[in-house]
């Protein structure tokens, strides 16, 4: 195939490089890594992480995935700690929408691509939605082993004994397993994956989910995925049940119960709690007003 044919094949209008931040070849490269990641759930696929207009550590991995899969028909939502209005979320959303033909939204149900850091929306996602997670530390075994070759061997041979030992030590030392965010989960019964950096509360939402989850670590140059309807089991002992964090009280704004309904965060210096997911909170308040009216 000639170089020209390759360029035409990208289907882009102008000079074959496309417009916006990423050229078509880069998008293909990243999509190939994404396909590998979906084919082998939980496996960390190395990819050629590009320089982005945001610094590494500020969501460059998630941004590259979103830019590689976004199209004109897409509606993009970006959250940071569940909040659409966070500075980082706002900037990334503007960057994505401004450099592509996609539309923006803050409404979870309307979005076709949701890029996030720290949270999965409270509202269950549907099969036509894609969740893109920004990942700081993709390696679930980083805490127990530093040698990259040894890490690869451990994953390849399904040798997670030392991860189990770290949980054992945690339980012995603290009486409970203290790990909160990025809790290690077994994906499809084969690979242990870091669910970084979402809280434990969100882990069950990945299990047998309707939606596709894509994880991008820009600095560490790794992409991994949880395809729809895949088993996601938190790594824990048979006799030590996995428990999510449960916030006390109710949301100060919408009244959501922290124990069962919504992941709450404390308002600094106030002893009050509010929903971390701002869209979920707003929707509940809207519904209340309609009921009252």
């Amino acid at each position: 195939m000639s170089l020209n044919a390759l360029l035409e094949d990208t289907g882009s209008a102008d000079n074959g490089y496309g417009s916006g931040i990423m050229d078509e070849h880069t998008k293909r490269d990243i999509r190939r890594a994404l396909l590998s990641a979906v084919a082998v759930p939980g496996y960390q696929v190395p990819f050629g992480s590009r320089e982005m207009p945001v610094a590494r550590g500020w969501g460059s991995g998630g941004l590259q995935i979103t830019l590689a899969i976004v199209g004109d028909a897409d509606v993009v939502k970006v959250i940071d700690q569940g909040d659409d209005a966070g500075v980082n979320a706002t900037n990334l959303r503007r960057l994505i929408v401004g450099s592509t033909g996609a539309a923006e939204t803050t409404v979870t149900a309307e979005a076709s691509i949701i890029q996030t850091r720290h949270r999965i929306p409270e509202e269950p996602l549907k099969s036509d939605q894609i969740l893109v997670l920004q990942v700081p530390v993709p390696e679930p075994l980083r805490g127990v082993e530093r040698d990259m070759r040894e890490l690869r061997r451990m994953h390849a041979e399904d040798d997670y004994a030392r991860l189990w030992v770290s949980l054992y030590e945690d339980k012995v030392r603290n009486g409970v397993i203290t790990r909160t965010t990025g809790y290690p989960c077994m994906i499809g019964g084969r690979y242990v994956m870091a669910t970084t950096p979402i809280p434990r509360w969100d882990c069950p939402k990945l299990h047998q989910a309707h939606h596709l989850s894509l994880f991008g670590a820009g600095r560490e140059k790794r992409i991994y995925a949880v395809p729809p309807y895949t088993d996601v089991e938190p790594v824990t002992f048979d006799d030590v049940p996995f428990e999510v964090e449960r916030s006390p009280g109710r949301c100060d704004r919408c009244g959501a119960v922290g124990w069962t309904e919504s992941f709450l965060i404390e308002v600094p210096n106030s002893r009050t709690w509010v929903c971390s997911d701002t869209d979920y909170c707003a929707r509940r308040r809207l519904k209340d007003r309609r009921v009252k009216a």
Partner: protein
Amino acid sequence: MRETETWALSVQGLTKSYGGRLAVDDVSFNVAPGEALGIVGESGSGKTSVLRCLAGDLDEDSGRAYMSGLDGGQTNIFSLTPAERRALRVSRLAMVYQDPALGLDLGISAGGNVAERLTAAGWRSFGAIRQRAAHLLERTEVPRERMDDLVSTFSGGMRQRVQLAKALATNPPVLLLDEPTTGLDASVAAGVLDLIRDLLAEFRLAAVVVSHDFSVIELLTRRVMVMHNGRVVETGLTDQLLADPQDAYSQRLVAAARS
């Protein structure tokens, strides 16, 4: 030669060289269940290399090794994949190193080290793991209150006891001991040796004990091989060989130890 009734571990023609220099030259031996075989020789004679090849820490050049517990003694353990070799180390073939840092993770607790072997073997109940680790550490005379202390805070003798507890965690039929008491002072070494002797009998282990120290070999083994420059120069019953060595090198070695 392959009647699995008579041996737990059978090694045939094991050869290993480092950059052209033969370290282990065509070494063969069998070890029966409940039997301890000693290997003596000076530093550099190749005795530790034999153990490391069997344990999988080193790749052998040629030779075969069979275990009666593995496919009825039909499968050469050197032909296994690295993952299968690791599984073998977890369940059937344990090794105690001279340097505890090789056999243990010093940065975690004594119980955690035993737990590593158990979780590798598929144990998934915290309660059961804890109970088994406590039982093993009690058996190897590690005080109960030290079970949750980091191994790095342990004395040399105590570290060897933790290594033994870890090695025995999955009831392996074969145990390899590489200079288990070298570096310990005499009274501590005597205690560890007594423990090893009791454990070998209690667990009916097929053991290979490597040491340059004749008192260790005399105490633990009934049969002994003398190695020199990678070759086995003499094999015999321990008391007989030490009392009346036939080979010229054995005679020198025994004379040096007795003087």
